[in-house]
């Protein structure tokens, strides 16, 4: 295969490659998805840019936490301040995938992959995007909901920004096997309790049960002002099921996925109740 390969040494260099070559350029983070497609002969890109040397890796803290786009999943799985992000990263693929795959690439993966969006939504993450001429920071929620065609082809994901975590969080992923398995459903929750033990703020994110990972906002609203008890948990589970919009694939039917939303919202909230 003959392809032009670009390995920029800085973000600016990367952005100028993007600007020059535009639509025909394949951007690679860790390449764990793209290389599989290339090796299977599914497509042959003419131009490839690897972000591996563009200086976009690393976790920084100043006021908030910033995770560079090419930070490997293995490193994300060691970020102790955001335990469910670390947990979700650890549950992705196997060691080889985690050593190569990046957080940035993960956020571009179509469902049922893209597990990291679930804990990141629970932590109110924002993403920083840049092109040669401009940069913008938007909420992850908005980013995920943007139709792909709207995303600038001249844009790169530069970093993920996280506010300091508050409250308690839990994350569970259901796969058909123990490792290297696409999600049937992934649930991330984070709740902040007031002094009376009532929920003052809640995030409930769902993955693999819609065309992108999303927050189940009705279920979140139902939790506000409640304590975590059998009834409030069952209600939130029920509402989250109704809010999800699952699909059928080779791993699970939509019917099953919807039911598992109920089971896993219940299980994550029960973990928090303990």
């Amino acid at each position, binding site marked *: 295969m003959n392809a032009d390969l670009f390995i920029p040494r800085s973000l600016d260099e990367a952005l100028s490659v993007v600007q020059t070559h535009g639509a025909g350029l394949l951007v690679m983070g860790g390449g764990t998805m793209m290389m599989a497609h290339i090796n299977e002969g599914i497509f*042959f890109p003419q131009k490839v840019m690897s972000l591996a040397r563009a200086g976009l890796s690393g976790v920084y803290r100043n006021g908030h936490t910033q995770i560079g786009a090419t930070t490997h999943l293995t490193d994300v799985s060691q970020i102790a301040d955001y335990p469910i992000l670390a947990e979700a990263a650890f549950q992705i693929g196997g060691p080889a995938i985690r050593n190569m795959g990046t957080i940035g690439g993960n956020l571009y993966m179509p469902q049922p992959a893209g597990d990291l969006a679930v804990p990141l939504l629970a932590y109110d993450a924002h993403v920083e995007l840049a092109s040669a001429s401009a940069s913008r920071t938007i909420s992850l929620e908005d980013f995920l909901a943007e139709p792909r065609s709207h995303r600038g082809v001249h844009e790169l994901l530069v970093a993920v920004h996280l506010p300091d975590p508050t409250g308690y969080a839990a994350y569970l992923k*259901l796969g*058909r*096997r*123990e490792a*290297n398995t696409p999600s049937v459903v992934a649930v991330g929750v984070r709740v902040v309790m007031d002094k009376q033990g009532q929920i003052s703020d809640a995030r409930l994110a769902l993955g693999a049960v819609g065309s992108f990972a999303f927050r189940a906002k009705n279920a979140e609203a139902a939790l506000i002002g409640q304590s975590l008890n059998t009834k409030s948990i*069952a209600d939130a589970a029920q509402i989250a099921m109704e809010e999800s919009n699952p699909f059928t694939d*080779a791993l699970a039917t939509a019917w099953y996925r919807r*039911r598992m939303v109920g*089971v896993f919202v219940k299980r994550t909230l029960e973990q928090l109740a303990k």
Partner: protein
Amino acid sequence: MSDNNQMPAIGVSMKRIDAFGKVTGQTPYPSDLNMDGQLWMKMRFSDRVHARVVSIDTRRAEAYPGVVRIFTARDVPVNEYGLVMKDQPVICGPGSTILGADVVRCLADVVAVVVADTEENAAAAAPLIDIEYQDLPTVFDPEDAMQDGAPLLHHDKPNNIIVHYKIRKGEMSEGWAKSDVILEGEFSTGYQEHAYLQPEAGLGYIDEQGRVTVVVAGQWVHEDQEQIYHALNLPPDQVRVIYPAIGGAFGGREDMSVQIVLALAAWKLGRPVKIIWSREESILYHHKRHPVKIRAKWGATRDGKLVAAEATVIGDAGAYNYTTNKVMGNAHLMVTGPYEIPYVQVDTYGVYTNNIMTGAFRGFGGPQGAFAAEGMMNRLAEALGLDPVDFRLRNVIHEGSIMTTGTPPPPGVTIQQTIEAGAIESGAWSHNGQGWQKSITQQPRESYKRRGIGFACGFKNIGYSFGFPEQNWATIELRGAGVIEEVTVRAAGADVGQGAHTIFVQMTAEAVGVPVEKVRLIGHDTAETQTSGSSSASRMTFMTGNAIRGAAELALKKWQDEERPAIATYQYRPPATTTLDKETGYGTPNFAYGYVVEVAEVEVDLETGMVNLVRVTCANDVGKVLNRILVEGQVEGAVVQAQGYAIMEHLVSKEGRVLNPFLSTYLIPTVYDIPVEVKSVLLENPIPIGPWGARGMAEMPFIPLAPAIASAIHDATGIWFDHLPFIPDRIVEGLREHGLGAIV
């Protein structure tokens, strides 16, 4: 034969002779081989499930850079192949030598073959071939395919029925009248993909003696050779097939994939030609395990004696026979289990559809038959209030029992001993004066999880059945002067990864009476060996062992007569088998059986429907353990493969199209999913015709696992699940119907 102070070569866990090369990556597999001036091949498969190929226009593809040649149906001298029935065109399209070869009958049919200078160019050119199809009516459900007026796939098979086997033993109305309890059941089983490590690949070339040569991975070099010379209309000795290391097979390499087209291209072009299938191509274009539907009705007396059994078994062959008629024959024999049943009526069908072809896969119809047979046995035990072990022991066959085919089983019937050993060694059953008792299963802490333990048994033939010619050749050469310095054994049996070559060396050393270090093996190459038959039907150790013993005896005699080198060739033929009578099923279908028992412990998550296989005990009468570590490897491998079959593996096919042809969506168990313990209980009751008493054993541990798991799930939940695979969607649905685990 061995002198007294020499270590025996068999019965020891000898390290595999291929281990070092394989674990260090030095051993070449077919895709690792390259030759100077080699070209690359890409196959263009059918775009339609059933259609007449009206025309093929190769001009655009031929104009693509690097394209050397495009082969179509017109280029194949005798355009047909097939292991048992030559019912499949090598390449489908107009201008063929064979009637009906212009029709594609499934998506795995080949329409053209592109040869180019590089793999990329061949791949890019293949879609540029313009094919005009005329669609034909389709049929995907074998029961629909059997109806009058259904679309016909092959003109010589009315109602698409490839085979219809019968058993008619006793007058059924009498049997039902004598039964106190009668149960009916409906079972179905799914596809299974072989998922061997090494996707299909090969290299075709003309060797130094001008022979059309194909280096490939298969299960029977001489059969591949036969398929090639038949299609190319060449004299047999003008075709040579060589296997380097083989990356797994499990039955999936019994039929042709790249062999004939590689030979065709190398022959016509006079240049080396190579192909490697991607994983997707491998899953889409080689056959699968048969999905089977079984309706069963069994009757027993109140005191636990089986009286009558009736079954209808329908297997989906897909578009071509492959080994369907043999696989369904096995299902036919095994659907009533290793039991004495006075009244039996079975009808078994193998049926063409426009689905992907189905064929050989470890167990060869046995797993499907056993799923229904053991399912019925476990339900009957429950209905009769009998312990399942106890109930089986009242009904198993013994020496001289009359089987459903009206004849006794071959000598060496040890299902009773195997059941007793499996039950005891599992720790779940005990025997006291009163009879068999199952211990109480420890339940997990979580309220939504339940554990259960289940039991099933089975049997499986060793070697070919139903009169299929069964033979195996070995040659032994002894060199040296006063003492034997070097022994060469020629044996073609395929080492598909199971360790056959190691066992051949061990058996040769033992038969000749030399240390294993003195033995050199010349293996699968048609130019160097005579036929061994396939590595299938749990037969290779048994068959080659007997051939080696025969050859060693003759060679040693020549050695004693001072011949140097002393060379002898021996053909082993086991006792003859017969086909079954068309109307009654009477016959002697097999010459040897192995017996097996499995006890499975599962944990069911009542909310998610996930079934975790925790522990398996497998008791298997192998006759003689020739190499313990290899035998245990087969048990563990079979258990994990059967676990995937029962719980996890779900090939989704819609209107003839496989929707998940990737290992990321067709999931097989990984090391994290397998049981924490697989306990191999190896019984050594020799059979008289086995080499050192050995029986075959590699398929047996696959056979009863799915019904043992079904029984364990029932123990945990009280519900019978009758449709494989036990994917969580189905489990949750079943649990909800019974008001269990329900969250809305």
